[in-house]
């Protein structure tokens, strides 16, 4: 969260940062920090340097340094051939990117937000995701589609949709949704090196957030495996499963609940296709309670999929209460600030849900 309008908010943010360090399970040798923006920028730079075939295309990615400055400095360093500004024609440039991938290059296609990817979704699904299968393994599509996904702040209905459910629905795609700076760096690199189409769902609000970064993550070969979740915070009373910004909300809720003696285990999914079922099941067997947290809409969302998988797994027999989904409100995003706040799950909503599931006042 980047609002620094009052002194007390600054203190809260500092406190959050300091306490966040205590929750992360990665080993931190030095106290180095990196924003998500810089993590992505570094990841892209490293991969472009490593492999000549990697190039970037999208609106404002070159001369403007990226609408959200993710590609800052890259056009200056690599030039017109490798960082391409496109006209506002998503279907066209996404198709061009897929064709380039079919012919052996490694494009990184940016959607300024994933809302605009709807214009190009046929190219993502029918041209990218399905081609390796339809060609019986003759033509693979090593493409990355990336950009901010889901709710931002004050951008209203057409600019706030979460596409996690839509993309993770389709076989042939890999879909990742990073949270920490390390997640972003490791996953964008893994996605670029992957021989299959990968959708990288970022989050505009997270871009400016700084996270502690381990020495290991500073390496040019640091990768985060696609398909593996991470336990951000171990706990024994209840499991919270989330992706992207919802992980932050879950961690905030967990901190508040810890003060009341309730220990939440927070799982950062990192990938939503494949979904790390094993990690979730193992956690539920330990805690016997599960809440899924997401900013997207409830119907057919990520939480729904997690619930279904738990029902179909051994974990069902270890549940002491039904699985509950905490989601965005089932309505288009309003512009009105107070309504927008009420449309998205806040830490106190998660706290409320945890207490209800655990039958605690």
């Amino acid at each position, binding site marked *: 969260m980047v609002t620094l309008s009052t002194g007390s908010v600054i203190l809260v943010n500092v406190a959050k940062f300091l306490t966040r360090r205590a929750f992360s399970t990665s080993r931190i040798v030095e106290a180095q920090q990196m924003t998500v923006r810089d993590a992505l920028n570094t990841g892209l730079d490293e991969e472009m340097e490593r492999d000549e075939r990697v*190039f970037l295309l999208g609106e404002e990615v070159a001369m403007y340094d990226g609408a959200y400055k993710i590609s800052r400095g890259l056009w200056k360093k690599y030039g017109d*051939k490798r960082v*391409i500004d*496109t*006209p506002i*024609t998503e*279907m*066209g*440039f*996404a*198709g*061009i*990117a*897929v*064709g*380039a*991938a*079919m*012919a*052996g*290059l490694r494009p990184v296609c940016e959607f300024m937000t994933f809302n605009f990817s709807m214009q190009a979704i*046929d*190219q993502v699904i*029918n*041209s990218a995701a399905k*081609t*390796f*299968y*339809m*060609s*019986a*393994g*003759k*033509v*693979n599509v*090593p493409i990355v589609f990336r950009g901010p996904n889901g709710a931002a702040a004050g951008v209203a209905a057409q600019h706030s949709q979460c596409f996690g459910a839509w993309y993770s629905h389709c*076989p*042939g795609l*890999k879909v990742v949704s990073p949270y920490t700076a390390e997640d972003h760096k490791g996953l964008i690199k893994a996605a670029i090196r*992957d*021989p*299959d189409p990968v959708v990288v769902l970022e989050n505009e609000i997270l871009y400016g957030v700084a996270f502690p970064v381990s020495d290991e993550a500073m390496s040019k070969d640091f990768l985060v*495996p*696609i*398909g593996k979740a991470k336990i951000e915070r171990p706990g024994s009373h209840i499991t919270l499963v989330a992706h992207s910004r919802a992980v932050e909300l879950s961690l905030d809720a967990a901190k508040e609940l810890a003060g009341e003696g309730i220990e939440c285990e927070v799982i950062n999914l990192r*990938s939503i296709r*494949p979904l790390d*079922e*094993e990690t979730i099941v193992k956690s539920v067997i330990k805690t016997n309670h599960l809440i899924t947290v997401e900013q997207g809409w409830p119907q057919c969302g990520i939480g729904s999929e997690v619930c279904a998988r738990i029902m*179909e*797994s051994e974990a069902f027999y270890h549940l002491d209460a039904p699985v509950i989904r905490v989601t965005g409100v089932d309505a288009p995003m309003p512009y009105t600030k107070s309504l927008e706040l009420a449309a998205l799950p806040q830490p106190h909503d998660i706290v409320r849900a945890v207490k209800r599931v655990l039958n605690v006042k």
Partner: protein
Amino acid sequence: MGVPQLGVLSELTGRQSGCARGKGGSMHMYGKNFYGGNGIVGAQVPLGVGIALASKYSGSDGVCIALYGDGAANQGQVYEVYNMAKLWDVPCIFVCENNGYGMGTSVERASASTAYYTRGDYVPGIWVDGMDVLAVREAARYSVDYCTSGKGPILLEMATYRYSGHSMSDPGTSYRTREEIQEVRQTRDPVTSFKEKIIAAELATAEEMKNLENKIRAAVDENVKKAKSDKEIGLEELVTDIYADSKEEYIRGITPWDRLEHKTLGMAVNV
């Protein structure tokens, strides 16, 4: 280049000797330098521009030919990539195969302008008699030269005709007369007229042409027989080649108890 007869015929019948092992079908055939068949008409045009872009990017003098019909010629994405191809001097040859009908809708009823070779606007266009083998060859030769000399994209409209219906579910006679189809077959058929040209120019005798036709017909008959009798791939291939590198632990089947094993069998030709 190209796909052998059996590869095409068996792909139509969905058998293992098909060029995509029967998994693609009529709309999704692939081979070396042939990136498909696309079921979403018009979607292949941006793909073609991307393939041509890759040639330019890697410094080769390759070009890409992106073909689409008169029906798909109205697709917005085609205009989006006319723009980008021209803007970036991409060596793509756009080919509009105008056979007079979308599925059952004639060009006059679908397009405000049926001069498809002009629809590229700032992309230069050439109208070609698509029923004349030599004209098509010359136009292709010209276009390849044009693109490889760095002049950017070019558009060819091939005037042709479709004898049968659009697909298996279209008899092809509800929107035109049988006389119209007969007339084209008798006066403009490309194979017949080319054969007549060859004989008239005394490059081969009628006898030699007859023998050639018989040989080809025999080969086709043979391959049709194979395509009809060859077996389909095994059930385990239902879940192969979904990914070049699968990260899934298992592929979920019909019920949660059906955990299927993914395998990557294919060797991608474009890598």
